[in-house]
């Protein structure tokens, strides 16, 4: 077991936020992303729910990773996730019935969010508790960040409001398609496009720099 320096732990946390952002880079967990991001409140609520489930569950799986037999591990993961999701579902219903109604079935669908199962296979089942929790926080944070970005853009363009606060006044003609299903697909596609072009531009600059140095 190698000794962990603080830098390494920090890196585990940060990678989930941007470099390996679950939605923008890994393209996992698409279903809830597109469905609930038609308003910023819903997007953020879903992000927090997923973060909660991801962290609790990474903690548990990582703590029990030597105990769970290999053959039943997928079933075990799924049942544990389902339990935490049920907890989160009821908590949300108690805390905020409005948001719960808006998110609807998609809270339950966190169970089959490929992001969560993916993190299990890739990380929590193989790493100590501290690193797994940091990884979960990073991935969940990145997921929430992405949801927030997408949801804000869609709400601002499609409804003229941000977190329910009207931004442009009554004469604004909202771009309604943005809050409808096609808008979800298109908005995320455009965001990915922007990131890809930024990445390419950066690579070009880096390439030019290398050639100059050579």
């Amino acid at each position, binding site marked *: 077991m190698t000794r962990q320096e603080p830098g390494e732990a920090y890196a585990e946390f940060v990678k989930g936020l941007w470099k390996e952002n679950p939605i923008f880079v890994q393209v996992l967990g698409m*279903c809830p992303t*597109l*469905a609930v991001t038609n308003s910023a409140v819903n997007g953020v609520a879903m992000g927090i729910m997923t973060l909660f489930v991801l962290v609790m569950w990474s903690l548990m799986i990582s703590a029990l990773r030597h105990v769970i037999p290999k053959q039943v591990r997928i079933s075990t993961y799924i049942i544990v996730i*389902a339990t935490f999701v049920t907890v989160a579902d009821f908590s949300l219903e108690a805390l905020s019935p409005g948001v719960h109604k808006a998110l609807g079935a998609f809270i339950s669908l966190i169970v*089959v969010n490929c992001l969560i199962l993916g993190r299990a296979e890739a990380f929590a089942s193989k790493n100590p508790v501290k690193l797994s929790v940091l990884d979960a926080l990073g991935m969940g944070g990145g997921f929430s960040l992405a949801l927030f970005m997408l949801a804000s853009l869609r709400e601002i363009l499609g409804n003229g409001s941000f977190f329910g606060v009207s931004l442009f006044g009554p004469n604004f003609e909202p771009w309604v398609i943005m809050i409808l*299903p*096609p808008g979800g697909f298109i908005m995320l596609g455009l965001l990915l496009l922007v990131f890809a072009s930024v990445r390419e531009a950066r690579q070009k600059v880096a390439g030019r720099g290398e050639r100059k140095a050579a």
Partner: protein
Amino acid sequence: MTGQLFWIFISSMIINNFTLSYFLGLCPFFGVSGRIDTALRLGLATIFVMVITSICASVLNAFILPHAPYLRLISFIVVIASTVQFVEMVIKKLSPGLFRALGIFLPLITTNCAILALAIFQTQRHYGFIEGVVFALGAGAGLTLALVLMAGLREEAELSDIPSIVRGTAMNLLIAGILSMAFMGFAGLFSGSS
């Protein structure tokens, strides 16, 4: 009764298409749909799993869950995982060629949100046994339809001259967005419908 069933079938297949309107089953949608025949096979396997899940969900809803509503999610998930395992074994026995062709995608049906959503919607809308099966058939058919359409479009796109920054997921998302818009046109199919 048949009018009601027909309406459930058509609405779940086309008007409220599981993939293009409800954003369900997106992982296979973006992951698998590179080729039409793979997409079709996966779609059919999904329909089969959906129908079985629907039947089990109806039984669960009728007899067991009224006593323990908080176990709903867990029991649905266990049913789905077992059904997929069972389907895997059956296909392996009956048609090894098909099993090899489907590969990893078969176990991935377990995490297909469309199936769990099917069970949840069915519970929320209080569908009976037959309505549930018809709903599953329609939803599965809609999913297969979306998968095959996407596969066809992507096969075409492979041969076209598309800039490199767009290729990959961004392009697939934009294609999906336009498909979704097209399907929105079905919204007025039944006049006076809710």
